[in-house]
């Protein structure tokens, strides 16, 4: 099985389509969407439509904090970036789309692979996994669910990172080179944050996703160029804050 892992699409249709095409070209046989389908971007309805169609065809879909927020936007939006677009997104989505998002699960397990939006440690609290310690907490919670979990994949932090057991006790952090197939054999345990499709924040414009070849036990972090100018134009045309448009070209 070649599992394409896409997270934090954030209603960026251009980036989403580019990643889907890239994953298909690389022979992906199963798709998983690790949450935050919406929020920030201009095309929540088309993105959710595509995901719903793929879910009907067998793709796995998880709920992210922005999906939850779009279903139940705060009555009075705070200054928090995420909440600024929640009401707008809510209005864009149909009743059926909102119900789809609202009913998404927080975890998905397939054999020794466990998928989550943020951390397996209290997934509903959306803990950030941005160091070995956070990854370790997620992994510990995963092994409490099932002792034979080997690969934990999540999004939420918008960066691509692999955490693994070295010779010490805690998990070590490894910054992957995009495109390199990394051996992740199943006799070890791994935690990966696979990056964001729709809103890269590491100073590069290219969309991020990952491809897990489970039979070969190899994980490839991918970067895909997409029409970020069109995505930014759509955000401006929708009347959303300029900041969300402008940051796409900077990858920030």
């Amino acid at each position, binding site marked *: 099985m070649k599992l394409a892992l896409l997270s934090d699409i954030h209603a960026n249709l251009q980036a989403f389509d580019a990643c889907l095409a890239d994953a298909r070209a690389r022979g992906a046989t199963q798709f998983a969407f690790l949450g935050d389908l919406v929020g920030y971007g201009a095309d929540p309805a088309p993105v959710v439509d595509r995901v719903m169609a793929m879910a009907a065809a067998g793709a796995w879909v998880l709920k992210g904090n922005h999906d939850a927020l779009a279903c139940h936007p705060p009555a009075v939006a705070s200054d928090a970036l995420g909440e600024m677009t929640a009401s707008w997104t809510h209005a864009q989505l149909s009743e059926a789309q909102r119900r789809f998002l609202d009913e998404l699960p927080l975890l998905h397990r397939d054999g020794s692979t466990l998928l989550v939006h943020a951390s397996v440690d209290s997934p509903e609290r959306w803990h950030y996994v941005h160091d070995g310690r956070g990854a370790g907490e997620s992994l510990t919670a995963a092994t409490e669910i099932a002792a034979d979990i080997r690969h934990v994949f999540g999004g939420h932090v918008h960066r691509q990172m692999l955490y693994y057991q*070295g010779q010490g006790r805690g998990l070590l952090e490894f910054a992957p080179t995009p495109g390199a197939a*990394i051996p992740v054999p199943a006799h070890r345990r791994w935690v990966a944050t696979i990056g964001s499709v729709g809103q890269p924040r590491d100073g590069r414009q290219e969309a991020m996703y990952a491809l897990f070849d489970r039979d070969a036990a190899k994980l490839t972090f991918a970067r895909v160029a997409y029409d970020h100018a069109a995505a930014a134009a759509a955000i401006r045309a929708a009347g959303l804050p300029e900041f969300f448009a402008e940051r796409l070209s900077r990858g920030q």
Partner: protein
Amino acid sequence: MKLLEPGETLDGFEVKANLHSGGMAHIYQVQYANGAPDPGFRMAMKVPRMATGDGAENIVGFEVEAQILQALSGPHVPRFVAAGDLTRVPYLVMEYIEGKPLQHWLDEARESRVRPSPETIARLGEAVASAVHSLHRQNVVHQDLKPANVMIRPGKDGIGGGVLLDFGLSYHGHYPDLLAEELRKAIGSPVWMAPEQVVGVRGDPRSDIFAVGVMLYELATGELPFGEPQTAGGLRQRMWMQPKPPRAWRSDIPPWLQEIILRCLEPEAAKRYPSAAHLALDLADPSLVKISDRAHEMQGASLGTHIKRWFKAAGMEYKPSPLPMEQIDQVPIVMVALPYKDVTDATLYSLRVAVNRALGSRPGARLACVTVISPSETSSTDAERSEGRVHSHHLERQKQWVRGVDLDGRQVSHHVLEAGDVAGAIIEYARGNHVTVIVMGAATHGLKLQAFKPTIPIKVAMEAPCTVILVKQELPFAQLSEVEA
């Protein structure tokens, strides 16, 4: 795992003979059990002594080697054939390398009480350095080079290409380092380990250059530069201590060899050869070696120097290494092909501008000037056109040309090659000397035939193993000559 007997099979491989039983693994010669022919070379199987059940940590080195060997290619590593499932039957099948380990030359010298000649040491060293560079270009640092892990294939006078073995402690820049831990510790073999390895730095290609230096030192002197340290304190000595100069052991060691060896053994990585390609270049032609004071030293550094270095070493900290390939890209070997006919001043000027640009501001860059002349240029009967005269004429032209290059202390070498096939000679030189970038004129080397057949620059651009910069002559010169006319 217990020793396998000849005739026994493991996962489709039949054991023919036990080649070696080491502390960590057994090595067997194997063939396919179903009678299928070998894949074009003989095969060796490595089976760890430890089974997985004995404790996973013992087998990590084996796991690292299996991963890295599968990712490597080229003539300087054994070709990978198969790997067993680590949790079931751990083994590794690879190309059996014909040849002798570097240890052979050390043993032979000890028994015969005759040290290998400086020329032999240089040839062995060049074979090893070229192999090491090939590894670094694939983003791998060996981290455990020693005479038992370096094979020399058969070749002229018994010395062919180098092949590196045993990647159990190696580092791959694209893979998570399974040997790392939060509290960095020394990983390697104490005799050959670089100072930065002592404090847990992994992934610096210059650590391998240090290990090559230790091997060259032993070949030349029969002694180990830092002995065989048994304690952590003994191991740390090399972080500040300069070894006894090779010529203090044997005064017949030439200064150039001492210069090379001591440069490899500098405690600070930045003072060593910046890449194994630079080291190979010096070993290939000792006349290129830039002799410094250290070539003539007959005793070690003073106590004061050692104390200063000790304080510096005490502050040495762990810094993560960039990818090995990125590191060696910073120290390019720039080759300029200087034509000797059909060339205008404007082209020579433009070549100089392009070379200055290619050298950039990189202090570790190095320049090789090459002129390929036709064999018909020289004559064995006409004294005016004797090989020596013609060559020195072209070398002199190169030296004049290079005066306009902003070298800023960087090393430059001059070469005149005779060949009928100019493009072939340029490509061969670039390949043999690990050249990073070739600079040549776009319209030189056969200008008149340009329109009719693929010209030399095109052939070079198509077949060169590296980047090629084709230089066009700068416009103002052309206009200037028109005005004069």
